[in-house]
């Protein structure tokens, strides 16, 4: 009986202990599960936190800049060209001259000019171009600095600043774009040794008329005066020069085109307000491509001057036999004809004939002008380097002859794009 009682007591004592152990085990299991759950939840929260952060960043980026257009295909990153286009053109010349008295620049190699060319769009509507020329005299000259405004009403394009006026063909070109080493005599004598760069404003418009030809009209006003050595206008800047140019272009065939231009420029010879000088210009250019590497170019320009100033013939000094040149009927003309044959992708040869009546140079024969004959050979070393040799014979109004051999090297570096003429 005692034993039974003891056993019952033992069982009674053991049962709660076993139950407690099971409960503890169950609780431990629950704790483990809960711990795991918390860990999982933590991971989930972390993951979601990261996603939220990422979404926030994307939203921030979206609010900062417009979304880039979807590029469905592989797009590789590319370097960007700098905003400012910068280039330089060096013009080196060797001049062998026949006069015994050196007038400077003869019989030596000289860097005639180093042009620094800058340009860039200012905004969606305008562009700024500038050319600064450095020469051997260690002087810098602002050749061009002008703003071009596009997209104006009536599709007008306006230039304002200092630029080369669109009068004729060669006057609008930079020296490195010429077919010859020097400018034609008519340009040198009337407008200046290197043409004209003047401050002003001009307006250009393509004329929409039903025609096989393309017509472009330019009207401009410039400060008065000419380039260095020019005699067409006086030196007073406040008396402006007004000019207009009508370009007429025709594609005769795919390989042949013709351009005929008419120009008119009126300006002042002195300080009074009258426009005594009226210059009428006619230019004709015919280009025929024999094939992609061979072409023939025929170009001619004539300028006719009507000057209403008074003229007198006087002998200076008396008895010297030298007269002050003038033109009795107040008219003068000058022009040139150019033939250029690109006979190879790298070689071209050509010939230029000049004839120009002078405005007021002292001459022994008042009816005689300067006449020039120039032949040249050009070697295009590469797209950026060119060599040219030219022989010129001048029959001058002074009664003297001059022979010149010119060797020119033109080298371009950087960004240098020629404007369309």
């Amino acid at each position: 009986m005692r034993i039974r009682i003891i056993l019952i007591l033992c069982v009674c004592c053991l049962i709660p202990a076993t139950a407690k152990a099971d409960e503890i085990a169950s609780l431990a299991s629950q704790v483990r599960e809960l711990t795991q759950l918390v860990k999982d939840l933590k991971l989930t929260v972390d993951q979601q936190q990261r996603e939220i952060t990422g979404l926030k960043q994307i939203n921030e980026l979206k609010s900062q800049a417009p979304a880039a257009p979807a590029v469905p295909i592989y797009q590789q990153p590319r370097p960007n060209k700098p905003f400012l286009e910068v280039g330089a053109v060096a013009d080196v010349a060797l001049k062998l001259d026949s006069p015994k008295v050196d007038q400077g620049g003869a019989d030596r190699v000289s860097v005639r000019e180093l042009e620094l060319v800058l340009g860039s769009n200012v905004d969606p509507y305008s562009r700024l171009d500038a050319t600064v020329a450095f020469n051997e005299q260690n002087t810098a000259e602002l050749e061009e600095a002008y703003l071009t405004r596009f997209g104006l009403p009536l599709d007008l394009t306006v230039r304002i600043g200092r630029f080369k006026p669109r009068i004729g063909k060669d006057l609008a070109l930079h020296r490195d774009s010429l077919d010859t080493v020097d400018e034609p005599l008519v340009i040198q004598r009337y407008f200046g040794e290197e043409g004209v760069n003047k401050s002003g404003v001009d307006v250009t418009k393509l004329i929409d008329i039903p025609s096989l030809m393309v017509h472009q009209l330019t009207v401009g006003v410039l400060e008065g005066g000419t380039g260095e050595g020019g005699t067409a206008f006086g030196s007073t800047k406040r008396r402006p020069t007004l000019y207009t140019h009508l370009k007429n272009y025709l594609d005769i065939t795919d390989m042949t085109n013709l351009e005929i231009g008419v120009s008119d420029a009126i300006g002042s010879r002195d300080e009074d307000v009258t426009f005594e000088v009226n210059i009428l210009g006619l230019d004709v250019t015919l280009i025929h491509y024999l094939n992609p590497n061979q072409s023939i170019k025929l170009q001619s320009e004539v300028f006719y001057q009507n000057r209403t100033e008074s003229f007198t013939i006087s002998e200076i000094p008396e008895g010297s036999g030298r007269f002050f040149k003038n033109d009795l009927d107040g008219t003068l003309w000058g022009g040139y004809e150019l033939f250029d044959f690109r006979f190879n992708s790298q070689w071209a040869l050509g010939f230029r004939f000049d004839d120009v009546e002078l405005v007021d140079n002292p001459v022994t024969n008042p009816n005689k002008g300067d006449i020039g004959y120039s032949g040249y050979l050009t070697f295009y070393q590469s797209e950026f380097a060119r060599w040219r040799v030219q022989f010129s014979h001048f029959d001058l109004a002074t009664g003297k002859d001059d022979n010149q051999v010119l060797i020119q090297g033109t080298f371009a570096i950087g960004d240098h794009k020629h404007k369309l003429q």
Partner: protein
Amino acid sequence: MFNKLKRLSLLMVFFISAARLLYAAAAPLKVVATQTLYADIVRQIGKEKVEVKSVASPKFNVHFIQPKPSDVRNVAHADLVVYTGLDLEEWWGPLVEAAGRPEFFPGREKSVDLSRGIRLLKVPDHPLSRAEGDIHLFGNPHYVMNPENAKIMAETILEKLKEVDLPNTSYYEENERAFISRLDAKMAQWKELCSHCAGQEIVAYHDEVVYLADFLGIKNEQFLEPKPGIPPTPKHMEFLEKYLKENNVHVITTPTYFPKSSADVLAAKTGAKAVTLAMNVGELPGTEDIFGFFDYDVKTLSEVLK
């Protein structure tokens, strides 16, 4: 009396405006493309809804085009312009400026830069210098020579046509699908026709066929030009003569606009064949559209590389 006149003038203004609107709606979209191949893709997608003109004649080297006043007029009157992008057509900027249309400046809303999305070859990995010749800043720009790129160009053109001429979206999409489908079929044919070309090597005049060579698996690492844009020199020709002989190269290619004399001289010395490849649509007979153009070039290479 005055009121009658007023009504009459208002009516006239209304009719004139309506006529102009109707004309504008019916008039085809005027597109100017720099090259004939681009013009052809625009034509394939736009068909009669577009009037396309190109600037560079395929007879001339696209690097050195001198735009004419007639090109200026075409651009001035265009609704959309399409160009290569990169730095191939340096004359394009001055042309757009001369036309006075700022909306056609590169990157603007009515200009289509076809280089977008193109995988470029020969992208420089070092600072550039002109001592390396007329080298291109962004990589080789002659991507027109790979027909796979025509698919990307077509997609770019389609997107812009849809943007500027929304009412004809489905028309353009349908034409583009037909174009791509035909192009896919032709590309398979071209690859099959020149399957034996893969792994062989050619020498080209300039580095303008590298994209076509890439498409056909042809090796093209040597050129008649010693540097891009620099004409062949005797020293380089001597090197090439040795190279062709040592590497068993039998084919020299030139476009129509470069002198063929150097290729002929080298071919005569080495026994290789000098062939002319078209570089653009319309350059040679039979290349009047993009399919004829690639037909001609792939067939020529296939025959000469047999």
